[in-house]
């Protein structure tokens, strides 16, 4: 019997704490999604969540330090899940301390929506301490339960 098995694809990047690198990661993610025929909608919203993860790591974690790196791992299991891990070298982060940006008192605040974005667009968002002392963020999108396709 003939059959084909789609292989897991993975990428690992170690990046300087520069906003320009957000575009680089999004290109890597987009290329992986397109090559494995992940839907455009899913790719777009995962890309938005990854943007937020990287922005937080670069700005709030590493505080734009030239000495600190951001580690990114992307793993795509076709038909199963897209998983992204982002690690910074900052002082750690408590996600419980983030206020609800949709509460009336916070609606007009000019910041504080990054974690909210990630939780809206991904199926799992998990923060933990990184081995190197910063924050490890794991994002997962189930490819069997697409958001809006």
């Amino acid at each position, binding site marked *: 019997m003939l059959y084909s098995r789609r292989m897991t694809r993975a990428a690992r990047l170690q990046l300087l704490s520069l906003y320009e690198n*957000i575009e680089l990661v999004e290109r890597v993610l987009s290329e992986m999604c397109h090559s494995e025929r992940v839907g455009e909608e899913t790719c777009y919203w995962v890309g*938005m969540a990854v943007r937020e993860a990287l922005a937080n790591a670069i700005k709030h974690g590493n505080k734009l330090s030239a000495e600190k790196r951001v580690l990114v791992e992307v793993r795509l299991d076709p038909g199963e899940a897209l998983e992204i891990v982002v690690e910074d070298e900052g002082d750690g982060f408590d996600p419980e301390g983030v206020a609800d940006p949709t509460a009336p008192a916070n609606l*007009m*605040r000019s*910041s504080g*929506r990054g974690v*909210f974005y990630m939780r*809206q667009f991904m199926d799992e968002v998990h923060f933990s301490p990184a081995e190197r002392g910063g924050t490890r963020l794991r994002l997962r999108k189930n490819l069997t339960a697409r958001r809006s396709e």
Partner: protein
Amino acid sequence: MKAKVRDVGNVRILDLEGKITIGSGDVELRQQIEDSVGAGFTSILLNFKGISHIDSSGIGELVGCYTTISRRGGKMKLLNLTQKITDILHVTQLITVFDVYDSEQDALASFKA
């Protein structure tokens, strides 16, 4: 992000293109609004037809610009949102804050009301 500037009567229209995201687009949006207010415009229409992405920093900047203009007695309105940008305004519940139009003519008329 790039912006083309048009003035129709006392309304400044900014035709935006690209991404309003951290590190570039968010700062450029703020600069464009500051330039417009500095030039005496308090009626500002942001044309989102060419905007593909707006991250949380861009949304924050949009809220900041709206607040700045409102405090000066002015109005900032949005035109031609794509479906994805509309979705983002819905999930952030900011769709209840901004005046949004699909027609430039209607948007311009609303400033006179």
